[in-house]
């Protein structure tokens, strides 16, 4: 944190400079290697990933809550977009992706100072740095928005905002640097193509801890808390699925065959996940539910995320099947066993999925596709490295989430009052309601 406070000071100093749009200073500009095709693809990929959060995730989540909480649930995704984006350009991007210290980046791009029309980030030399920054922003946004699902139906909006800001600063930014920004996990060779650790596992474990700290919803286990309009969740799933082509395909950072391979394994994993979850329900409950199929699809998508871009198309099918099985188990058995109320199963789907996918990336990695060999290609150490990455993420995200919530609760109660919970968050937090 010492480093951080120093940076904070530096940051303050930068504000003045930035205010005058000094952005054009060609500092660290490099002889341009920008390719317009890659730029075209990445602009679209960026738009797709934004679409995953609004309206994608907003729909997916609000489709699983009761009528009185639909708008409040959408508000959580919306607020994540608005706040995280600003923080990302202020310091998030720079600390995560500029400079490759083991623990944290630098503030050289704080307030985007020095980012020019033709500067590029070493990680993506064929597109404008500004685009790389924007693309990565959309990942930070959706990760924070994902966590909210665990505390849906009961968290006070003000508390959520404080938590979201803190979680972004102390969980997401460091993790993104460690895994993608040249940090110690990157140096160690952890494979995480599009966010099994950084996005899904960190959000999943964060959500689990948050659900535990917040406590269960009133009526959980006794009253009927069934979703108001599941069709919203289906539509959301469709947009998430499509957007995921930009999420995983875009992580190749270029319009090339690797992006295509990532998209194929992603799509197949979603299909296999949907079929698997549906099949299990059919076998165990005599009916395959639509919620089950979309849960399986999202589980497949989340699980393939770290592996896509490293594995072959068919591995996507295998990973999707595994995802369907373990995530179903986590949402139906594990959750009851430990009796926590992770409202929208962020841990069950994204936590378990992210963990599984990260592990399997180490198993299936094909060097011909991602340049790295996995267990099957005779490189067992990779599995250990993956396990290490999982452990670090679990501990860091889980721990910091806990501390943050305790901290926030000092300033404002995390939960709304029982009265407000009964009335619904739409009315109590936002003064609106669906008619």
């Amino acid at each position, binding site marked *: 944190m010492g480093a951080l406070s120093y940076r904070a000071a530096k940051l303050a100093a930068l504000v003045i400079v930035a205010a005058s749009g000094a952005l054009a200073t060609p500092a660290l500009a490099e002889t341009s290697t920008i390719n317009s095709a890659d730029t075209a693809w990445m602009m679209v990929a960026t738009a797709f990933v934004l679409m995953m959060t609004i309206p994608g995730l907003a729909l997916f989540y609000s489709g*699983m809550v009761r009528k009185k909480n639909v708008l409040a649930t959408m508000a959580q995704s919306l607020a994540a977009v608005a706040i995280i984006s600003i923080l990302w350009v202020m310091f998030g991007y720079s600390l995560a992706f500029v400079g490759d210290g083991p623990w944290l980046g630098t503030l050289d791009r704080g307030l985007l100072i020095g980012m020019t029309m033709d500067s590029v980030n070493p990680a993506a030399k064929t597109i404008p740095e500004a685009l790389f920054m924007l693309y990565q922003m959309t990942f930070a946004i959706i990760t924070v928005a994902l966590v909210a699902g665990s505390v849906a139906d009961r968290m006070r909006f003000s508390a959520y905002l404080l938590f979201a800001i803190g979680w972004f600063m102390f969980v997401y930014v460091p993790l993104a640097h460690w895994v993608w920004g040249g940090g110690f996990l990157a140096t160690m060779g952890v494979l995480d193509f599009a966010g099994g650790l950084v996005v899904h596992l960190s959000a999943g474990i964060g959500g689990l801890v948050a659900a535990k700290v917040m406590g269960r919803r009133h009526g959980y286990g006794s009253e*009927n808390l*069934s979703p108001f309009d599941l069709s919203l969740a289906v539509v959301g799933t469709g947009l998430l699925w499509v957007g995921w082509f930009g999420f995983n395909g875009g992580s190749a950072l270029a319009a090339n065959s690797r992006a295509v391979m990532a998209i194929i394994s992603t799509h197949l994993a979603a299909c296999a996940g949907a079929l698997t979850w549906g099949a299990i329900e059919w076998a165990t409950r005599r009916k395959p539910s639509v919620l089950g199929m979309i849960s399986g699809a999202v589980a497949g998508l989340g699980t393939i995320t770290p592996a896509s871009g490293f594995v072959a198309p068919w591995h996507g099918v295998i990973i999707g099947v595994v995802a369907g099985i373990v995530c179903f188990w986590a949402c139906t058995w594990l959750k009851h066993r430990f009796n926590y109320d992770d409202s929208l*199963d962020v841990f*069950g789907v994204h936590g378990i999925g992210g963990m599984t996918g990260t592990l399997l990336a180490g198993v299936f990695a094909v060097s011909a596709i991602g340049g790295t060999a996995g267990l099957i290609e005779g490189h067992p150490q990779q599995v250990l490295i993956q396990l290490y990455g999982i452990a670090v993420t679990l501990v860091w995200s889980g721990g910091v989430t806990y501390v943050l919530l305790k901290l926030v609760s000092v300033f404002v109660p995390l939960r709304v009052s029982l009265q407000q919970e009964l009335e619904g968050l739409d009315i109590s937090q936002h003064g609106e309601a669906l008619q």
Partner: protein
Amino acid sequence: MKLVVAIIKPFKLDEVRQALTAIGVHGMTVTEVKGYGRQKGHTEIYRGAEYVVNFLPKLRIEIAVASDIADKAVAVITSNARTGQIGDGKIFVTPIDHALRIRTGETDTDAL
């Protein structure tokens, strides 16, 4: 006058309405309700959560009629709303002291 209140299965509405019109009852008020009774509901499962839904969709028909045709109305509703399966519903006949047509101010049977 009597207020005939019938709880029926939703898809029976049209038959009942036509039958009532046939015997000269030209007005009714219908409400979507949820009914609880002998007819057992179903189970809905959302991921890990299982809910037993005891309340089933029914329609509540309210018909104000002159006392003398109340029985006829009841008979007509009964025969047309019946499927013979549990859950067909009930009919309650309750008294009305006065009735009035808002548009004209006509009262009692003239109001119907």
